[in-house]
């Protein structure tokens, strides 16, 4: 099967981000004083456990960022034609989940549809009852009798397989890096890993035969939708920061160091930006982007590309509205740093302002940047849901927690209630944000236990 790799804008930025992260990690490794706070993070149980959870999310997100289009079997004029649908490596791995769509709602692990239908029985009579699902539990001959046994069996074997895999992996790790055995959070990480592996194993095994989290209105697997939403959350949480970082860093540091009119101009700009209620600014900007995209539909050859540009635009806009806080923080810190004696020593050598900024100021504010990047991440993930609800979030065709909640919240009124879509979206979001918040806490303590978050002007 031949395919055409597709690089969406946000994919490119995600990979750029990963490359930056790897490069800085490689660089930090050789700087003992920079490594020091990271060692403190590595010594923290909460830190390592939340990092483990986060990295699983990131893994899904990265797999979901490797996009391609499948070649269609028929050719036109000898040229290969590719399907309009853009898929990802994650879709490939979770092909079963993606393609096994039912007719409409079904509850988690159900074998029957949520709604009654008129069915023609074998004897020609038309009965109105809950039909069997096309895929969920299709292998069961008599669901009433076999369902419980089958579900428990699959859950147990899956969990056992997961546990075994982690234990083997841990054994291998200890063999290769004996020091890992003595590491303080090792036990906590192992327990968490076993727990996660058991759950994942059980879910994976069940997912081959059931819809573990049910299906939504058009019969899509909710587990699949939730996993697909992870990428959107991660992109919004990270790419936004990537976009705003250069502005915040450069302007904040410049304002603090040069003072005078430079400071006045920069302060004016961020006062203007921060005085506009951010939801309104985002709304106005998103409306604008919608108009542009609407007017230039011919720019995009696939729906995925159009949705991606809208996601990117949202990141840019969020970046514009969120850099002011960090900028103000950095300005305050630079004002303090510029009075430090080592800055004056550099000035006494006639070192140029640019060099002083790059060598003395920026390295000494990087911990603030790092902390605020991690702290912003969870706020941005949460903001996506709210913005999508307001109608100025990501494209309605993009899988995101906000869109899931938005389309599911009206179903709470149904009888019996359709709760699983909403619960999965909130559950996954809580897990992601909680892990990020806990990690941010550990990071902040490791880098600066007395960072004054209340710094004003």
């Amino acid at each position, binding site marked *: 099967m031949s395919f055409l790799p597709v690089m969406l804008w946000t994919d490119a930025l995600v990979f750029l981000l990963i490359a930056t992260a790897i490069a800085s990690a490689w660089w930090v490794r050789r700087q003992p004083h*920079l490594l020091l706070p990271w060692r403190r993070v590595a010594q923290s149980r909460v830190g390592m456990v939340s990092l483990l959870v986060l990295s699983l999310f990131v893994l899904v997100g990265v797999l979901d960022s490797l996009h391609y289009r499948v070649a269609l079997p028929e050719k036109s004029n000898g040229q290969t034609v590719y399907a309009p649908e853009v898929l990802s490596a994650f879709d490939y791995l979770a092909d079963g989940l993606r393609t096994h769509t039912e007719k409409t709602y079904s509850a988690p692990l159900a074998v029957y549809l949520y709604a009654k239908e008129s069915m023609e029985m074998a004897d020609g009579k038309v009965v109105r009852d809950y039909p069997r699902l096309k895929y969920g539990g299709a292998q069961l001959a008599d669901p009433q009798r076999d369902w419980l046994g089958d579900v428990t069996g699959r859950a147990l074997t899956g969990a056992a397989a997961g546990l075994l895999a982690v234990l083997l992996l841990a054994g291998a790790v200890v063999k290769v890096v004996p020091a890992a055995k003595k590491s303080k959070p090792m036990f906590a990480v192992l327990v968490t890993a076993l727990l996660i592996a058991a759950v994942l194993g059980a879910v994976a095994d069940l997912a081959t035969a059931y819809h573990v989290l049910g299906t939504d209105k058009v019969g899509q697997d909710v587990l699949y939708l939730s996993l697909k939403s992870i990428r959107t959350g991660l992109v919004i949480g990270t790419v936004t920061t990537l976009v705003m970082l250069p502005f915040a860093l450069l302007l904040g540091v410049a304002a603090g160091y040069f003072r005078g009119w430079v400071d006045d101009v920069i302060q004016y700009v961020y006062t203007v930006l921060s005085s506009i209620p951010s939801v309104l600014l985002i709304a106005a900007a998103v409306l604008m982007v919608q108009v542009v995209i609407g007017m230039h539909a011919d720019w995009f050859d696939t729906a995925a590309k159009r949705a991606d540009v809208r996601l990117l635009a949202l990141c840019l806009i969020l970046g514009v509205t969120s850099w002011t806080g960090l900028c103000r923080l950095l300005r305050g810190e630079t004002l303090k740093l510029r009075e*430090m*004696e*080592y800055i*004056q*020593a550099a000035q*006494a*050598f006639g*070192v140029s302002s640019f060099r002083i900024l790059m060598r003395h100021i920026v*390295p000494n504010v990087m911990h603030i940047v790092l902390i605020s990047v991690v702290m912003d991440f969870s706020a941005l993930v949460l903001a996506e849901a709210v913005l999508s609800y307001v109608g100025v979030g990501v494209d309605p065709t993009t899988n995101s927690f906000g869109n899931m909640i938005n389309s599911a919240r009206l179903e709470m009124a149904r009888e019996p209630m359709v709760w699983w879509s909403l619960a999965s979206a909130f559950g996954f979001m809580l897990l992601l944000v909680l892990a990020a918040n806990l990690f941010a806490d550990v990071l902040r303590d490791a880098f600066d236990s007395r960072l004054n978050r209340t710094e004003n002007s």
Partner: protein
Amino acid sequence: MSAVLKVSGLVARLHNGARIVDDLSFEIRQGETFALLGESGCGKSMTALSLLRLLPDSVQVDGGKVQLADADLLSLPERDMRKVRGGRMAMIFQEPGLSLNPVMTVGAQITEALALHRGLRGAAAEARCIELLQQVGIPDAPRRLHEYPFQMSGGMKQRVMIAMALAGQPRLLIADEPTTALDVTIQAQVLQLLRDTQQQNGMALLLITHDLGVVAEMAHQVAVMYAGHIVEQATREQLFAAPAHPYTQKLFAALPGAQRRGQPLAAIPGSVPPLQDIPRGCRFASRCDRAWALCHEQAPAWTTLDGGQGVRCHLYATADAAPARTSDAEVAVQGPQAVAPAQAAAEALLQVDNLQVYFPIRKGILQRVAGQVKAVDGVSLSIKPGRTLALVGESGCGKTTTGKALLQLLQPAAGSVRFAGNELTGLDAQALRKQRAGMQMVFQDPYASLNPKMRVAEILQEGMAALGAASSNNDRQQYLDALLGQVGLAAESKWRYPHEFSGGQRQRIAIARALAVNPRLLICDEPTSALDVSVQAQILNLLKSLQQELGLSYLFITHNLTVVEYLAHDVCVMYLGRIVERGAVAEVLHAPRHPYTQALLAAVPQIDGRGAQMVSVGGDMPSPARPPQGCHFHPRCPHAMPVCRERYPQASASGATHIVHCYLYGNAAEGTAGES
């Protein structure tokens, strides 16, 4: 007299088990001042806090007994302990600026203590509060009552702290470095106040200090602490006459002063061991030049000598086993014994005329400049090659501003700075860079003067790179090694980061950084005031030997007159932005003419063990934003005349080099208002 406080076997430890206060025993009698002397990090503040049971969360008392009169403090329930704090036992702290609640009036803070311990409220409390403020010498007490701490000077704040401590009529007052943050004239006032108070109400005083001078002035009994232990305890007379412990002896020998001029100070090598890894044997052994094998293995026991003097040292426990004492001459840093002869004929390297640095005061809707703070107001000075000029003054007098303006780190408002014949003011950045190599600065705080994110090598190379001293990498590395060797650091240190060094080592790096560009003049801004006495001696020795080797000139900015006496050739005394007296060290320090210089000298505690002397000058230095009319010193001057209130005195010479701005002398009375 009975003992007010009796401490026996007190131990405090960190959570990791390090005993930062180890087996402390002492007694304080009524009306007695007991001094706890030691360098930073030796556990003296922790001792005080454990008496009050106010230790930080990371430290806990782990044994021992504290008896205040008849109460066993360590076993009191917290409720009763609160009655002791501020009641029978009160405490004052080092930083009066931080120790008072910034958003409460001083009256409210004192009244709080009165309400807690004397049950006084309302008018009665206020009346008592005014009484207390008057007792600690705060003028205009009824008005001051309603002021906030930020409206008071440092000395005033410490007086308020004392008033607050006296509110509960304590039987024991603990004073933790009560004057370290204060200027020397204010220190004299506060020490006098403490003595007077003690005489009036007969309380006991536990004085915690690092300053031998303060001990000499105040103490009846002295305990010397080192790394958590009391290593020596004696009466003041005994200690100053014959210090027993090698550490105490070294502390005395490390003090700079006139009598040591021309010879290196006996610095104690190394620094106080960090609290986390206290050595097994004698804690001082690694720095002691008289240590032998036993000292490194076994902690010495407490030995009582004749006359009640106690010491914790193997020298006295097993006197015969000790090796013969090495003479001081062998221990001392090798170096030329005499100061290079004054090159009176030489051309001045730095010539400063009428330097003025003003900071604008902005007011109103449009932020117009409404006035100027004349931080430096017409300073003139000159330094010859190979000489040291000391710029002396109290905090806020403009001496640091002068230093920065000389380096053109601040834009002078007027005046000229000629360095090696070239005018520096008004140069653009490019032209200035050419001159920068000649003049460099060493800063006060070794923790703030090195970028924590740069290796030592990068720090040292920064100036060379900026000033375009390009050379091959190989040459440069050799040069760095030589440089580090010159300041007494190993060549390997260049691959390390500043946080791995102690304060004294950091100051050496800072000196090496300045030396890297081959300057001819170093501006040293209080380079030793953040260091312990023993480390200060190392840095002073280094500066002195560098001057002899390299022919450097120094502008030495300091408030410490004993350092001046030891190191400088010439002195300028600064008060409120102006130089009030200048001359050779011998002239200014031994025959001071300006009343301010006289007051400054009189305020320095004398280390002769003879006890206290009288306060020489009252009041505080006025704000430089509103200097007094006429001679700036007249409101505090005991000799002020009507003319002093009207015009600033002109210079009057009393000798070839000795110049003073004062109407008391000669033709100055006829002078005009001068530069202002």
